[in-house]
C-alpha cells in the first residue's frame, strides 16, 4: 500500500524502533488508536469482547464493539482513499461526498425498484444497479473535477454546489418516494452473507484497499498526484498534464462514493435522503488529516489515511458506548481533533523530538557518571 519506508520494519533494538516510529507518519494515528484502546481497557474491558451469536435468520454472526467499529468504518475507509488522492493533487477537499452518497444510493434503489417503490421482486440484477451507480457517481465526480481542474475553482467552493444540491437531486431521482427493497439478498452487502460471521462491508473495504494498493504499485498515480499537488507548473514542464490528474482524482473519489453509497443503502434496504451519510465528509477529511497528510496537498500516505478512518470510527463508537448524547458527539470529537492536530503539527513534533534527545543525553550522562 505504501512505500516500504512507511511500513514498520522490525527494529534491531527497541530504541531504534521507537525512534523510527515517532518519525513515521503512521505514528499519530497509531498513538491515537492506542490511547483509545487503553482508555477503553481501563474503563470497561468488556468493550473488547467479541461473541458469536445467531442473528434473526439463524446464521452465525460475530458481534461486539470491535466488530461494529470495523464494520461502520468501511465507508469511511473507502472514502478516505479517494479523499487522500483529491487532497494530494488539488490541495483541497471535496465536501460533497455525503450528498453524492445520497445520489448514489438513490440511483441503486431506482434501478432495482423500477417504477414501483415497493416491488415484490427486484427489477434489475444488483450488479447492473451497482454499475449504473458507479457510472453516475463517476460523472458527478467528473463534474466536481472539471470545475476544479479546468475552471480553476477552489475545491471547497466547487463541491459546495453538490453539497447543497445533492440531497435534492437524490430525492428527485426517486420522485421523493422512499423505496424499500424487501428481497433479503440485497441486504447481504451491507450486513452479513449467510454463513459468514463477519460483516460484508469489511470485505468490500478490504477489496478497495487491495485495488488502490495495486493501482499505486502498477501506475504512477502516486508520483503524478504528489508532483501536481506540490508544483503544478514544474509538473507541466515535465510532461504531466496537471489538469487531467486533478480531474482523475475526483473521478476516482466518485467511484469510492458509489461503493460507499451502495453499502449505505444495502445496510437499510432503503434510504433517507436528508440523513444518509450526513456529515460523513467531515469524518473523511478528518481521517486524511489524522493520517498526517497535509490538507494543502502534495505528499500523502494512503495507509495512514485509512488507519485514520478506523481511528475516527473507534472514537465515535467509544463515545456512543459511553452513552454520550449523539448531539454532543461532535463536541467531543472536536476536542480530540484539537489534541491530534496540535500533536501532529510539525512544530510540536520537532519539540517532542528535541525533548526526547535531551532525555536520552541525560540518561547517557547519568550512566557514565555511574561508571
Amino acid at each position, binding site marked *: 500500500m505504501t512505500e516500504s519506508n512507511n511500513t514498520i520494519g522490525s527494529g534491531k533494538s527497541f530504541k531504534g524502533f521507537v525512534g523510527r516510529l515517532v518519525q513515521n507518519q503512521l505514528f499519530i494515528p497509531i498513538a491515537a488508536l492506542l490511547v483509545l484502546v487503553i482508555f477503553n481497557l481501563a474503563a470497561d474491558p468488556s468493550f473488547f469482547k467479541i461473541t458469536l451469536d445467531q442473528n434473526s435468520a439463524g446464521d452465525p454472526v460475530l458481534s461486539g464493539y470491535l466488530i461494529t467499529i470495523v464494520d461502520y468504518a468501511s465507508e469511511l475507509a473507502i472514502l478516505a482513499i479517494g479523499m487522500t488522492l483529491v487532497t494530494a493533487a488539488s490541495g483541497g477537499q471535496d465536501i460533497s461526498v455525503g450528498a453524492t452518497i445520497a445520489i448514489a444510493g438513490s440511483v441503486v434503489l431506482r434501478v432495482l425498484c423500477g417504477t414501483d417503490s415497493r416491488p415484490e421482486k427486484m427489477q434489475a440484477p444488483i450488479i447492473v444497479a451497482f454499475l449504473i451507480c458507479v457510472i453516475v457517481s463517476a460523472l458527478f465526480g467528473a463534474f466536481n473535477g472539471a470545475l476544479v481542474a479546468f475552471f480553476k475553482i477552489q475545491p471547497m467552493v466547487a463541491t459546495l454546489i453538490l453539497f447543497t444540491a445533492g440531497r435534492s437531486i437524490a430525492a428527485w431521482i426517486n420522485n421523493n418516494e422512499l423505496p424499500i427493497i424487501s428481497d433479503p439478498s440485497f441486504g447481504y452487502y451491507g450486513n452479513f452473507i449467510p454463513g459468514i460471521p463477519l460483516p460484508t462491508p469489511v470485505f468490500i473495504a478490504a477489496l478497495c484497499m487491495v485495488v488502490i494498493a495495486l493501482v499505486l504499485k502498477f501506475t*504512477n498515480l502516486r*508520483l503524478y498526484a504528489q*508532483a501536481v499537488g506540490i508544483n503544478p*507548473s514544474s*509538473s*507541466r*514542464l*515535465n*510532461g504531466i498534464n496537471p489538469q487531467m490528474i486533478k480531474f482523475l482524482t475526483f473521478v476516482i473519489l466518485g467511484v469510492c462514493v458509489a461503493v460507499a453509497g451502495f453499502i449505505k443503502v444495502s445496510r437499510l434496504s432503503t434510504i433517507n435522503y436528508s440523513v444518509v451519510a450526513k456529515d460523513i465528509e467531515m469524518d473523511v477529511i478528518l481521517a486524511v488529516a489524522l493520517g498526517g497528510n497535509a490538507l494543502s496537498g502534495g505528499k500523502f500516505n494512503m495507509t495512514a489515511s485509512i488507519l485514520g478512518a478506523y481511528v475516527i470510527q473507534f472514537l465515535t463508537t467509544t463515545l456512543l458506548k459511553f452513552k454520550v448524547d449523539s448531539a454532543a458527539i461532535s463536541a467531543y470529537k472536536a476536542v480530540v481533533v484539537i489534541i491530534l492536530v496540535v500533536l501532529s503539527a510539525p512544530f510540536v513534533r520537532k519539540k517532542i523530538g528535541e525533548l526526547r534527545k535531551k532525555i536520552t543525553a541525560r540518561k547517557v550522562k547519568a550512566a557514565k557518571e555511574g561508571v
Partner: protein
Amino acid sequence: MENGAVLEMRGICKYFPGVRALEDVDFTLREGEIHALMGENGAGKSTLIKVLTGVYPKDGGEINLTGVASNAHIRSPQDAQKLGIATVYQEITLCPNLTVAENMYIGRTKGHLTNWKKINADAEKLLDELGIPALATQQLGSCSIAVQQMVAIARAVDMDCKVLILDEPTSSLDEQEVLKLFNLMRSLKEKGVGIIFVTHFLEQVYEVCDRITVLRDGKLVGEYIIEDLPRVKLVSKMLGKDFDDMADIKSESDADNIDYNDIPVYEAKDLTGTTGIKPFDFEIHKGEVNGFTGLLGSGRSECVRAIFGADKTNGGKVWVNGKQVKINKPLDAMKNGISYLPEDRKLDGIVGDLSVRDNIILALQVMKGFFRPFTRAQAEAFADEYIKLLSIKTASSESPVNSLSGGNQQKVILARWLLANPVYLILDEPTRGIDIGTKVEIQKLVLKLAAEGKSVTFISSEIDEMIRTCSSLIVMRDGKVVGELKGDDLNQNKIMATIAGGEGK
C-alpha cells in the same frame, strides 16, 4: 570598539546537528561603507546574516552595535529591526497589491487613524530624495522588480536603519536596473549607512564595494580592502585553492567539428509564441552549443519556451532531424528528444517536497508512461548513478529536494534531464544563483555533452559565461532576433553593441 564601526560581530559560533555552520567568525561593518560578504554556497554567509537578523539564535560570540547596544541579544527579526538592522531579500517580501506608500509604511503607523495624505506626501519626498522612479500612489505590483526592491530599501531607510543587509538583490535585475540600484546604494553610503552586500556576481562586488569579507566552510578567511584583492585572488580565497580552470575551459571545446551542412537536429521556421515574441527562425546542429542573449525581457526565455512547447505557439513549422513535427506541449518536445531546464528553479524546476530520487526520475518516468512505473530498484539505480556523476551533495536519495542547497537543486534538475537522454538540451540560466565551483562544473558539462554529439542551447545573464561555452550567439531585443554572432564576433564589445542596437548609428 574600532573607530567608525557601526557593527561588530566577534567570535560568532553557530552549530546545527552534526554541522559547524559558523565557527569563531568576526565581522566588522563601518559607517558609510559597502561591505561584500563572499563565499561559496554553504560557506556560512546566510547563517551569519540569519544570526545577525535574529532568525537563528547564536551559540557563541557577541554582537555590538555602536551607540545602540553592546552584546546585543537579538532573538527575533523584530529585535533586529528595533536595533536598526534592516534586510532586503532576494525575493520581494512586500505586498504587490498595495500602493508604494502603503508598502513603505505598513505596520508602522501609530494609532487607529491614518493620515494617508501625509503618508503619501512623505513617501513621495523620500522616493524623490533617493531617486526611485515610482509614484507613492502607484500599485507596487505595477513597478518593475528593481523598483520594488528599491521601495523595500526605501522602507528600510525610513526606519532609520544603521545597517542595511542586501541579500542577493541583483539576481533578478538586468544591467540597467543593477546600475540604478548601485546608485541608490552609493547615495545611502554617503548618508552614513553601513551596507552588507551578499552576491554571487564578482563584477558587481568590484563595481560598488569598499571591503570584502570572505568566509569558507563556516570559518573566516579574512577581511580585505577591495584594491588589495584582485579577482583571481578572491576566487582562490573563496575556493581555498588556486583557480585556473575558468580560463582554459574554452580550449576543451571543439567547435570546428560541427558540420553545418548536416541536417539540423532541430530547425524552426517562423516560430511564433503567444508571449510577445516575433516570428523567428532557428536551427541547431549536432554537437553545437549556441546561446540566446539579450536584456531581461528581450524574449530569450520566451523563445526557448516556445521551442519546448512550454508556452502556446501560434504559427511556424518545426523539424526534428529533418522530420516535420508538431510540438504543442512539453511532452511532445520530450518525446522528440528535447529537454528544457527552466529559468526559475523554484517555480518551474524542482518539485519541492518530493525526494531527490523522484525528482531525478520524473521526466524519464513521464516519458515512459503512466502505466509503466519504474521499480524501486531501477529508480534507485538511476538516482544513485546521477548523484555520483554530478556529485550532488545530499544525505540520501530519499531526502526532500528542497533540503538541498541551490546549486545542488540545480544539479538534480540537470540530472533529471540528462537521464531523459535528450538529443537537444535547452538550459535557461542553469548557473544563476549558484557558486562558482558549480558554475564551472556546469559549463564543463555542457561542453562535454557537445563533444559527445548532443546539441545544447545555453542561456546566461553573464556574457563571459556565454562567450566561454557557446559557438554561436543569437541576440535578441524587444522580442525580436536582431543578430547572430559566430567565431571572431563572439566578444564582449560586439555582443554589447548588438544588444544595444548601436550598429550603423
